[in-house]
């Protein structure tokens, strides 16, 4: 039903400063953001609370004006364009449904503004309501729907005007876990089918990982890393990103030298070889060695990199989590397919090992 060319969204040096009244300091909500979102791509903005995700989204939608920088939708600069002139549709965290209209009128609102003949509107609204599974709910008031249904009305209302860009601000945060998963899949399907460029704001890393083509990790107004979920997870450039997108253990190390594209560092008095490193890592500096639980292995004492003692094993079915006390503190090791592996009993001495290409050297700075 919706045929439209996918467009890109570009942010060039976008900064948003909120003037704070009563002589307080200004808040820099977004700082020098550069981002190119390809046509048809779904990008998530991921970051802790207050990092500027919503502000970024609202600038793309036109509800906030950038203090500096430019925003493009396709090739057109839209920095100064008011929201009603932009070809974007936003799904708000609170949905923003029109409480004085029925579900049908809510969905039809955008079409009525476009002066489309009534019979066409009817056909389209019914089709869209069907698509989100609310075909029989046209006459209801939004307040008489469940959270998930309201959410789908909001989705239908945004999609029916065939926006070039769909903006979603934590649309699922008010739903229970099961519904959340369902809706996530639904949104992703529709977005892919229609080829809409989408920006999705969330602070839930699982949501970001499972949904997006690329993830933008933000902190304190800065974009920290942009990349596909696997890259963000496997190859974080900073300690913050590594920690924010998944479980990780950081071992303090000193980088000794670089041999044939491999880093040699000192870890607990022994030398360890690491294949990859993040930003701002140089020979001679103190750094951290980042290891995901599933990248670590438990081996016989004395044969690995770090010695320790198993404190507790948690059996999860398809995997097993071993909490091991070491001189660096407690380290979590995830043993996949535990039935095929040797399990060290609680209390036994063990050693932790890793392959050079499964861990990463990162600047030790927390931020």
């Amino acid at each position, binding site marked *: 039903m919706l045929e439209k060319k996918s467009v890109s969204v570009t942010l060039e040096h976008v900064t948003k400063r909120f003037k704070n009244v009563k002589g307080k300091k200004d808040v820099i909500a977004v700082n020098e953001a550069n981002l190119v979102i390809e046509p048809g791509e779904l990008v998530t903005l991921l970051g802790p609370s207050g990092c500027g995700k919503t502000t970024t989204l609202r600038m793309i939608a036109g509800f906030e004006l950038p203090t500096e920088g430019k925003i493009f939708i396709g090739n057109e600069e839209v920095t100064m364009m*008011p929201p009603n002139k932009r070809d974007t549709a936003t799904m708000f*965290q609170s949905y*923003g449904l029109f409480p004085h209209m029925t579900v049908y009128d809510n969905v039809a609102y955008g079409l009525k503004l476009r002066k489309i003949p009534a019979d066409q509107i009817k056909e389209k609204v019914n089709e869209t309501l069907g698509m989100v599974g609310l075909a029989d709910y046209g006459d209801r008031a939004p307040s008489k729907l469940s959270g998930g249904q309201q959410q789908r009305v909001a989705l239908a209302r945004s999609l029916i005007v065939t926006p070039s860009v769909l903006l979603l601000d934590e649309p699922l945060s008010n739903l229970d876990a099961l519904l959340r998963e369902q809706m996530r899949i639904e949104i992703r399907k529709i977005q892919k089918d229609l080829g809409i460029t989408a920006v999705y704001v969330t602070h839930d890393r699982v949501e970001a990982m499972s949904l997006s083509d690329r993830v933008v990790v933000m902190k304190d107004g800065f974009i920290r890393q942009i990349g596909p979920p696997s890259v963000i997870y496997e190859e974080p450039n900073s300690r913050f990103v590594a920690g924010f997108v998944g479980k990780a253990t950081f071992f303090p190390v000193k980088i000794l030298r670089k041999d044939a594209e491999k880093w040699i560092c000192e870890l607990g008095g022994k030398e360890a070889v690491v294949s990859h490193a993040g930003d701002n890592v140089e020979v001679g500096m103190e750094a951290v060695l980042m290891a995901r639980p599933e990248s670590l292995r438990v081996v016989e004492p004395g044969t690995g990199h770090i010695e320790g003692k198993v404190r507790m094993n948690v059996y999860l079915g398809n995997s097993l989590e071993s909490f091991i006390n070491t001189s660096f503190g407690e380290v979590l090791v995830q043993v996949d397919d535990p039935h095929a592996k040797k399990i060290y009993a609680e209390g036994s001495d063990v050693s932790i090992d890793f392959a050079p290409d499964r861990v990463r050297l990162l600047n030790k700075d927390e931020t």
Partner: protein
Amino acid sequence: MFTKKRIIQFCFAALIFLSLDLWMFKTLSTNFRSYEELRNFNEIELFAQTAPEDQDLQAYEKWIPSVKSIIAGARAFYFSFDEMQGDFVPSTGSETSFRLWDKYKESTEFRKAMESVYYLEPMKLSGSYKADYSLDPDIHSQETIASQVYFVPVIDENGYQANGAIMILVPNSTATGYMSLLRTIFISAAVIFLGIMLVITFTRDPITGFMVLALFGVVVIFIAYPLLEAVRLSFMKDGVVSLQTWKETLSPTYLVALWGSLRLGVLTATISTIVGYMFAFLIERTSFRQKKVMSTLATMPVISPPFSLSLSIILLFGNNGLISKQLLHLNTSIYGLGGLTLVEVIGMFPIAFMTISGVLRQIDSTVEDASLDLNATKWHTFKSITLPLSAPGIVSAWLLVFTNSLADFANPLLLSGDYRVLSTEAYMLVTGRSNLSAGSALSFLLLMPTITAFLIQRQWVGKKSYVTVTGKPSTTLTELTNKPVRVSLEVVSWTFIGFIVALYLTIVAGCFVVNWGIDYSFTLANWGEALSRGWTAIRDTVTLAAIATPIAGLLAMLTAMLVVRKKFPGKRLLETLIMTPYAIPGTLIGISYILAFNKPPLLLVGTGAIIVINYVIRELPVGVENGITALHQIDPAIEESAADLGADVTTVFRTIVLPLIRPAFLSSMSYTFVRSMTAVSAIIFLISARWNHLTVLIFNFSENLRFGLASVLSTILIVIVLMVWALMQVLVKDDKLTQKTISTR
């Protein structure tokens, strides 16, 4: 937003437009001046040709003043040619001209002119001269006006000799009328153009920009300008800056009136607060049964028309009152402080009642329960818990009633007798002695305590710290009174209400009595006469209020939306200015309106428009507050969604905001209507032969002791107001259902 490029763009465009504007203005005004000069020359020469044939002085005396019929406002003086001296000598004509000539006759300009006339050449002096037009006794012109001076010869029959010369003064005023119009047009063109340019260049949402601009226009023209004009004129006397007016105002005569206003205010506020607290306590804090009826009856006086309570008090307790004279044969007078306080308390205790109710309702009764659990007596609990917790309500109520009493105009007008208050004193000055500037100075005097009280009240309302709002209203209320106390409260309250009802019934009775106080026989004649004499006033009042109502409602909601949802420079200023009329006594607004709008370019005095504008401006603050409160409860995402789907500001307002804040919209409209129907303090200055107001007519009838007619009109007014009020109750109740579904999610 304010990029260098845009600023340069704007300045460039502004420069081009301004120079164009200025150039056109200059050209037009020069053209007009030379045209005017030419015309005057022609007229004057023509006038000289009509000179009497014979050199008879009497004939000339008659002829000279006729210059006015040729050029409006002109003055002429005749000089005859004296052969002996070989020069022109003053003969006859206007004193104004003669004095001017006498003053300047030795100047080269005047000498040259005389010489030129001698050689039969008419001449206009360059530059203008100030002439005192009050010198001519026959013409009532008081001013010194800059004038052009022309000299023309009166030529002998043979055509080569001057018999005499005429000096003619033409006041600039005729020209300045046109010139000031021209100036106004070009200045407003420039202002409007710059405003539009500003919006287009510097905002990304021109519709909002224009709305803000228009709102600023309205506020500046109809709120700031009249007030400033009133201030300015209170410092002027006969066209020069002077403190004379203020000296007069601060003289003992008027300080007595200020003291009178304050005394009345304090008395009224104190008693009203006590009565109001009693009602509020009975209704909110006891197990009293008829809460609904009681609270409806107790709020009624708020919407009752002005004069009606005073009228009723006069009918009952006046010099010829039913109770004072016929029943008790008393000789004490109701006119004065006592009577005034009584009427004002009845009229204003509902304000205290509603304010205190609001606070009492919010007190969490678990606090009281806790106290009672600790074995405190009920009285002790009331004294140590309930009363202190309701202190903000009490203070707030007192101040509100106080400001209302100070601004009250209608009751003192009828009931003050020898007792003097500022609001009516200002009215007397304006209507009795046409002393507008002193009237406005007096109103400013009144403004000071009003504003002070208003600001303190704001402060108290802002700090709700005492009130424990739990969000969950307790379902059960602890009975804080024992039975005897409650019953005595009930009795007192019902007596009070009964008295009020009796007052209104008295008015109804007054409609059907031949001549109250003298002849109590039944008649319907009052109705016929009142309707025939008051019909146009009724029609005008309803029409104007009906026009003002939707305008005020829409404007208030639009303003609320802009204030709550949009960012723009000068927002605080705009809000403050819009709220100003709320704190200002109506008398001051009325006086400042006649001062500001009785001259071009905004010559509005005498039109219906000024009355409508006055209604709108005065009732806007309450509407805007209603709208703001309503909007704060609505999730901005709802409006943003609409904008996001392609709705521009006006569409969002029409399809989303207005329906969502419908209750506020409706109540603002009904408020405006009721208040406009019952307005008097400002309106009494603004009515005209064409547009009369019902309340003013009621006042006129009461003043002339035509109580029957006044009663009929009051009854009609009460009925209209009650109907609108009831209709509004129904509409809003209807809305409560939809209102429930308005949740943010």
